[in-house]
């Protein structure tokens, strides 16, 4: 199947058909947010002619909420997007105004980078990447409906879109990344306006077109805090938080020194961090107090979340400040962070104060905080209610179960976060290309990528609240460390054309070098006579028995590879000596973690046989009276394919799984 733009050899349709003159693409992406950008880039890089349709070309890769990328779980996804040839990590590295490493002492599996971004530069970097991509077109227009063909096929198939300005456009596959635009409504205090976010209109026609097709929609809620003018903030009443002293990069290119940061001279009122490796701005920390809480409590009846005017489900991990005050009345203070939205803007994002309280309450609440006593709000906080497509409509390939070649990615699937959107986008783009080429669609395993965990969670678990990635959602957390993302995903990325040969070769060469280095650690037997007594204590490894391998020594908790390399001359040559500091750290993690990863793998393997065991296809779950009622309903609704999927459904307990096992075994023994 060809994937080039407007192939002249295409079979001509009958003359009276206007499809002759209709524009035609392999893949159309609806939306240009974080999911849409990655989806479009992946589809185009996989060789498909791709069109991005967005109502506002000034909002490509836009950050309507927090001007930051990363954090636990999220930076893990970003590393995978990068390994799959995606753009988010590179754009974030280019446009960052601050980098920090979180969870420094909690172990490499949960360590995470958080990047503060200049939000305009980030959008610029992303749009630039899209514009530079061959085979990718951008257009400003609005998709009002999907063209879906139903004849001659048991499952309808998408054929293109209808836009407001351009009319019908043909496509082999369509990816919807509509974010919060479906029937969006903005709410603050007593005011309620139609819109997807401040300044952008909602899209009701597309939502209607989807619900007419039978897609189940869910009403969700999210929110954003106010922004304040930095010139009105008393920074001396805050604690500054500087950027990292050590170089930190989200992308492989950044680590390799191949990223040129996008920079503009900062406004003089911003505080520059002292680190020399790149210019960074400080953020500031302050907090709410009893006065703030009293004021909010006194106005709770005016809060849409509490007086019933918001019905959508909001995420528990991103509560509004009124929520926090109401649910944790004993906490004397909640942290508030002030984060610059860019090098050359005075606007600060007030992290921790997400709210939909009336504007006068927002003003008054901020003024109870000493640092914000004089603060002038530039944009008020508000809540957004929107329709999301129930993720049970999804298959783990990101294709909709209902309509063939129709893919869904990002917040429209009920997730939250730019990173979660990007992860879905790249998988949807890759699989849309596979669908166009009639190749098998890719499913990422739960042991392969956080993106796989997310896709599986979305497709197979009931949906209770907007989905955010957490490292604790991954059973194979030790394995899915960000620094192993290339190892895990480069072969797949290369096979599908998402990364080039040079990059794939570099990843493979690194892996080979690491394997050689591990072999060196394994084969090198040492004795205490090889090292001075004083050095031994400094190594923190206690005694060295005759003939112990370096690998064994390194697995002792106090041992550090760098110190061992200094102590044992034999490590100063061979593969280990050729490792960069980054690879040396990776080697250390791999060796130190080896035993635990094996333990984790054993624990998972214990359940793996059951995990993959298929469930009988035509079971009437509602009739299995020995299942608890809730389990019967969930199973009937989600119809899991394997016992593994079934076991992850909330409301399905291990005891229910045992019941299913008994039934399945009996069914298999006496098929009827």
């Amino acid at each position, binding site marked *: 199947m060809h994937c080039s733009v407007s192939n002249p050899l295409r079979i001509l349709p009958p003359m009276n058909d206007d499809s002759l003159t209709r524009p035609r693409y392999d893949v159309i992406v609806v939306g240009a947010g974080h999911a849409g950008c990655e989806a479009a880039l992946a589809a185009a890089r996989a060789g498909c002619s791709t069109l991005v349709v967005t109502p506002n070309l000034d909002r490509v890769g836009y950050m309507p909420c927090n001007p930051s990328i990363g954090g*636990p779980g999220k930076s893990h996804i970003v590393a995978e997007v990068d390994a799959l040839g995606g753009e988010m990590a590179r754009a974030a590295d280019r446009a960052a105004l601050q980098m920090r490493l979180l969870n420094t002492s*909690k172990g490499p599996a949960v360590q995470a980078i958080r990047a503060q971004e200049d939000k305009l530069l980030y959008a610029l970097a992303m749009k630039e990447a899209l514009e530079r991509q061959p085979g990718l077109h951008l257009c400003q227009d609005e998709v009002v409906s999907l063209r879906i063909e139903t004849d001659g096929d048991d499952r309808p198939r998408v054929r293109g879109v209808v836009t407001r300005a351009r009319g019908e456009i043909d496509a082999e596959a369509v990816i919807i990344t509509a974010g919060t635009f479906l029937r969006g409504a903005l709410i603050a205090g007593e005011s309620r306006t139609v819109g997807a976010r401040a300044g952008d209109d909602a899209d009701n026609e597309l939502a209607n077109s989807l619900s007419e097709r039978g897609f189940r929609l869910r009403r969700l809620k999210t929110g954003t805090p106010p922004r304040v003018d930095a010139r009105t903030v008393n920074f001396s009443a805050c604690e500054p938080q500087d950027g990292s002293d050590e170089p930190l990069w989200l992308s492989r290119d950044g680590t390799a020194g191949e990223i040129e940061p996008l920079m503009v001279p900062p406004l003089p009122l911003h505080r520059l961090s002292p680190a020399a490796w790149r210019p960074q701005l400080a953020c500031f920390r302050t907090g709410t107090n009893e006065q703030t809480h009293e004021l909010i409590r006194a106005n709770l009846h005016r809060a849409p979340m509490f007086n019933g005017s918001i019905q959508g489900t909001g995420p528990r991990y991103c509560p509004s400040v009124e929520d926090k005050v109401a649910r944790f009345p004993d906490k004397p203070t909640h*942290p508030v962070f002030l984060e610059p939205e860019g090098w050359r803007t005075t606007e600060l994002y007030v992290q921790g104060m997400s709210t939909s309280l009336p504007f006068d309450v927002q003003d008054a609440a901020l003024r109870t905080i000493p640092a914000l006593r004089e603060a002038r709000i530039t944009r008020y906080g508000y809540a957004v209610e929107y329709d999301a497509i129930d993720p049970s409509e999804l298959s783990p390939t990101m294709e909709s179960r209902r309509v063939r070649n129709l893919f869904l990615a990002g917040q429209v699937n009920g997730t939250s976060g730019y990173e979660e959107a990007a992860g879905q986008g790249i998988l949807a783009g890759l699989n849309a290309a596979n669908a166009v080429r009639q190749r098998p669609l890719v499913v990422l395993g739960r042991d392969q990528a956080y993106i796989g965990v997310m896709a599986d969670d979305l497709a197979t678990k009931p949906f209770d609240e907007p989905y955010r990635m957490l490292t604790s959602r991954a059973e194979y*957390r030790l394995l899915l460390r960000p620094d192993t993302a290339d190892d895990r995903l480069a072969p797949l990325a290369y096979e599908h054309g998402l990364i080039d040969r040079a990059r794939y070769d570099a990843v493979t060469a690194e892996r080979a070098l690491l394997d050689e280095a591990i072999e060196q650690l394994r084969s090198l037997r040492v004795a205490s006579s090889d090292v001075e007594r004083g050095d031994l204590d400094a190594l923190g490894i206690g005694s060295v028995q005759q003939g112990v391998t370096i690998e064994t020594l390194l697995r002792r908790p106090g041992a550090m590879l760098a110190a061992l390399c200094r102590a044992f001359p034999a490590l100063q040559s061979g593969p280990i000596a050729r490792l960069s500091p980054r690879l040396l750290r990776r080697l250390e993690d791999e060796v130190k973690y080896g035993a635990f990863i094996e333990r984790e793998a054993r624990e998972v393997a214990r359940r793996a046989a059951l995990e993959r065991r298929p469930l009988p296809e035509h079971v009437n779950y509602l009739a299995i009276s020995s299942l608890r009622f809730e389990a019967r309903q969930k199973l009937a609704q989600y119809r899991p394919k394997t016992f593994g999927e079934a076991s992850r459904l909330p409301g399905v307990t291990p005891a229910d799984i045992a019941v299913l096992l008994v039934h399945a075994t009996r069914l298999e023994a006496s098929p009827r």
Partner: protein
Amino acid sequence: MDGSTIAAIATPPGEGGIGVVRISGPEAPEIAERVFRHGKANRPPRLRRLRSHRLLYGRVVDPVTEEPIDEALLAWMAAPNTYTREDTVELSCHGGPVPVRETLRAVLAAGARHAEPGEFTLRAFLNGRLDLTQAEAVLSVVSARTVEGLRLAVADLGGELSRRIRPARDAVLSLLAFLDAAADFPEDEIPPVDIDVELAAAEATLRDVIAGARAGLLFREGAQVAIVGRPNVGKSSLLNALLRADRAIVTPIAGTTRDVISETITLRGIPVTLLDTAGIAETTDIVEQIGIERSQRALAAAAAAILVLDGTVSPSSDDLKVARLLADRLPGGEDAPPVVIAINKRDLPDRAAQEPVLALLPGCPVVEISSLTGKGIADLEAALLRVLEGEAAAQTRPALITARQHAALDRALNHLRDAIAARAAGYPLDLLATDVRAAFRALGEVTGETVDEAVLTEIFSRFCIGK
């Protein structure tokens, strides 16, 4: 469900005054009518015309020859208000193996299929009458066969085990919620937790639950008691006296018992398996040597031991050797089985002092017996019961668990111990969390909880998350 009607003897074999044959399935009443005669006219009852849950007096007959088998009570219980939720008939006849077995034979001849072990409970479970843990508790009664086991199983049907596990489950969950929150929400204020204290507390709680559960196992699975002593002191004849049946080969030649012979008796609700061991002595006989090794293994597995001495002669070096073997194990604490000393052959006039042996095993109860006349056997049983119950009594209120539950709890405990070791070795939080999560998952196999759901709910209810 294959739709057949099944039948089996529903009471433990060989005990009790009444034996019950249970018939369950769509044809239960019709089958019962073929083997039951009732009233003055000695006619089959017409059960489906009768109200459910009625008791009829009559007799069981052979369905072909009409020959009477036994007097019996028939209980008719229509679906769904029965144990299996199927039509059920129970025939209660006189106890004793013969009438009960004959009644079952008649029922099978009348068209029922012999039930597989546990099949009534399986049907109850498949028909939604019991949930899995209840079914397991019931199955454990079926195999326990004792009144005490039944009492515990009934407690378990009420969720006793879940209640007992709760503190351990809560401790592990709270720790896991902290570890996950700390990893996933580093910029939120998570109140610090003393991980070492929490881990130790969770481990201790779980250890208690398992210890209590082991005591429950004593009632369900019973205890093994090893009968030990040098060759030819009368171990096998003591076993026979306890069984009142000839099982072991008793000869006057030392070393006849070359294998371990086991028999089960019931001591006040505890099924006690007696292990007759080969005499422990230095020997060159290879076959006997194998027997002795088996004896030592049997001793290692036993919950208690009876040391048999020959009361007619002074202790020999072999006697002292056996006593020392037991004494060595005693101060070892946990694994050492308690010992009851039985001085045998007290029916004979020759009486030799046994003090050298008794001095090696101070504090152990001593009973004078005669395997031949049965003198002192009741005292021996009482002493044995005291040491066994002493074990169990140390644990208050045992919970009854199945092997599956026991294995899951053991796994949870091992994961917690791994976590404690990882913590002591200074490993970071992400590794620790792996072990604690595995522990919770193992507990979930007993409590029926899945890990993600529980932990997230715990995190969001305990910590104020969200900047």
